[in-house]
């Protein structure tokens, strides 16, 4: 008998979870505890020495969080995952395993503004440098490779522009350069795009967005594809060299194709500390159970709203890859055939002031700095999420001054369109 491979929706409900051994509780319990008792001194020593699997302290691992980790790893097709306090924490933990002072990453210019800030300013204080490249010009990634390059970082669907990235083309550049490709898959979720299937070595998420999906809990996650050989040269000593913290263990040698996830846990999370609350893990897990249903509705609504806006006389342009006329439509058909996501931008003929008026006239859309909520959301990136960039960088990141970003929720699409119509004509 060969193994059956469960479908995505089955994994979204079941992966990682099992009725509780002691109580039989069917929903995943919230293990709201800091610490876990050892069986005896040898068990304690085995756990601390990474010889045994098990729980020690919630800053290193927690059974509720572990269910979330296995579930997202299963949905992404990875070997293992590590949940952390936020998407930003996920990025810091990932790069701490890969970079030493003086090392570089290449990052796509079209990124979430918070990531641009983190890479540009916070990482500078660690001595980590970033070279920017243009996702629409694959050769710009190749040109940016230097002997110090340690990773390439892109978003599958870029925030705020909603543009689709050619993951396979950039994965080829990463392979040639001998560095891992890291994909932030927040806006697509594995329901729409599974970057590992297209050559990604590491996937990161802000779980706060569509995966959690209800705008109630922060979280982040790192998924190890298990595809990268960390020991083929001396570029990644955290994984290939004996670790003094663990009496000389070599992580890849010991943990094989999930060594990166283990490194993130036992070197990153343990020492940097951005642990996810088990309560948040529970909320996000509950959200993930309905991910396929919600993403279908998000995408259906987004397409209807984008089509409405594209036909509106006051609208100058709509950037939604799900529209046949969009420059990213071919990439959307290839990478996200089930839908092009629910975050996109548009601009108004009357420019910046009209955008500000629109935001204040909307009655159903909420004006706030988040995406991927059940509720429809609106923001003006140039004055908020991307406000720290100069005007040229704003344009390059897809957040020009006249651009408004929408995150379409799962309400009735007729009500969303009616709200936009009244706000545009008010």
């Amino acid at each position, binding site marked *: *008998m*060969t*193994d059956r491979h*469960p479908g995505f929706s*089955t*994994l979204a409900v*079941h*992966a*990682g979870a*099992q*009725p*509780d*051994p*002691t109580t*039989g509780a069917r929903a995943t319990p919230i293990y709201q505890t800091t610490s876990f008792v050892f*069986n005896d001194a040898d*068990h304690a020593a*085995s756990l601390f*020495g*990474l*010889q*045994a*699997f*098990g*729980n020690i302290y919630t800053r290193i*691992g927690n*059974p509720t*969080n*572990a*269910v979330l*980790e*296995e579930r997202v*790893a*299963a949905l992404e097709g*990875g*070997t*293992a*995952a*590590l*949940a952390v306090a936020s998407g930003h924490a996920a990025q810091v933990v990932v790069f701490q395993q890969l970079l030493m002072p003086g090392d570089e990453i290449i990052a796509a210019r079209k990124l979430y503004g918070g990531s641009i800030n983190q890479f540009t300013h916070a990482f500078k204080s660690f001595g980590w440098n970033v070279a920017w490249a243009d996702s629409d010009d694959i050769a710009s990634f190749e040109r940016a490779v230097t002997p110090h390059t340690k990773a390439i970082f892109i978003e599958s669907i870029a925030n705020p522009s909603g543009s689709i990235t050619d993951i396979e083309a950039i994965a080829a550049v990463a392979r040639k350069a001998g560095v891992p490709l890291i994909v932030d898959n927040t806006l697509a979720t594995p329901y729409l795009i599974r970057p590992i299937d297209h050559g990604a070595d590491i996937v990161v998420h802000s779980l706060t967005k569509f995966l959690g999906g209800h705008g109630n809990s922060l979280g982040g996650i790192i998924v190890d594809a298990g595809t990268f050989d960390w020991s083929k040269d001396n570029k990644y000593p955290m994984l290939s060299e*004996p670790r003094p913290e*663990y*009496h*000389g*263990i070599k992580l890849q*040698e*010991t*943990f*094989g194709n*999930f060594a990166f*996830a*283990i490194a993130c*846990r036992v070197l990153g999370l343990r020492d940097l500390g951005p642990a996810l609350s088990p309560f948040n893990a529970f909320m996000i897990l509950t959200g993930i159970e309905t991910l396929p249903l919600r993403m279908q509705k998000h995408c259906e609504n987004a397409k209807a709203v984008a089509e409405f806006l594209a036909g509106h006389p006051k609208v100058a342009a709509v950037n939604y890859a799900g529209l046949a006329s969009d420059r990213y439509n071919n990439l959307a058909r290839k990478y996200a055939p089930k839908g092009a996501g629910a975050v996109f931008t548009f601009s108004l003929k009357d420019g910046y002031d009209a955008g500000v008026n629109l935001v204040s006239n909307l009655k159903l859309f909420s004006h706030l700095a988040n995406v991927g909520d059940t509720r429809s959301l609106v923001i003006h990136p140039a004055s908020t999420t991307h406000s720290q960039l100069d005007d040229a960088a704003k344009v390059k990141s897809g957040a020009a001054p006249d651009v408004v970003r929408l995150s379409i929720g799962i309400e009735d699409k007729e009500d969303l369109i009616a709200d936009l119509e009244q706000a545009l004509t008010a």
Partner: protein
Amino acid sequence: MNHDAYDDNYIRAILNSVKSIAMVGASPVNVRPSYFAFKYLAQRGYDMIPVNPGHVGKSLLGKPFVASLGDIDRPIDMIDIFRNSSHIMPVVDEALKLSPLPKVIWMQLGARDDAAAEKAEAAGIQVVMNRCPKIEYGRLSSEISWMGVNSRTLSSKRAPIPTQGMRLSLNRMSVGGGETAASDRAAKNKSELS
């Protein structure tokens, strides 16, 4: 036999059926992967035999080292080879001289020798390459899920109580001063069953 991907049922059947495991290349150094795997498998009830000519006279977790497979005084169900790919063939040749033959030859994570595998399989021996029995045991028992690893298994049945983990026990402090006979009886029955 496809050695690029194994069905879970193939691995599960091997780990469920073998009892004695000779580990070739077992190390007494407690940060080496072979030490981790040896200890883990011993704790799960396998009869472990460390094979390493460099450590004869010493023992690993109470089990005396032997120099070679031929020095083992009892039938071996499985040989777990902790050597790199270039050292596999001589071990397989040695294994094929044993009587009775081992049922399984397992090559550790990173180790693969297709010619050696073919030779062993021709003699009716099951082969696993480039896998770790500790990781596979942990994955299929879902114990490894505590580390966020994708076990690639699903179950709607109550998870087993972890081995050597939480058990109902009589050594509880009675704080209310009330009768504990019923719960003590339940706990006693439970521990007798397990």
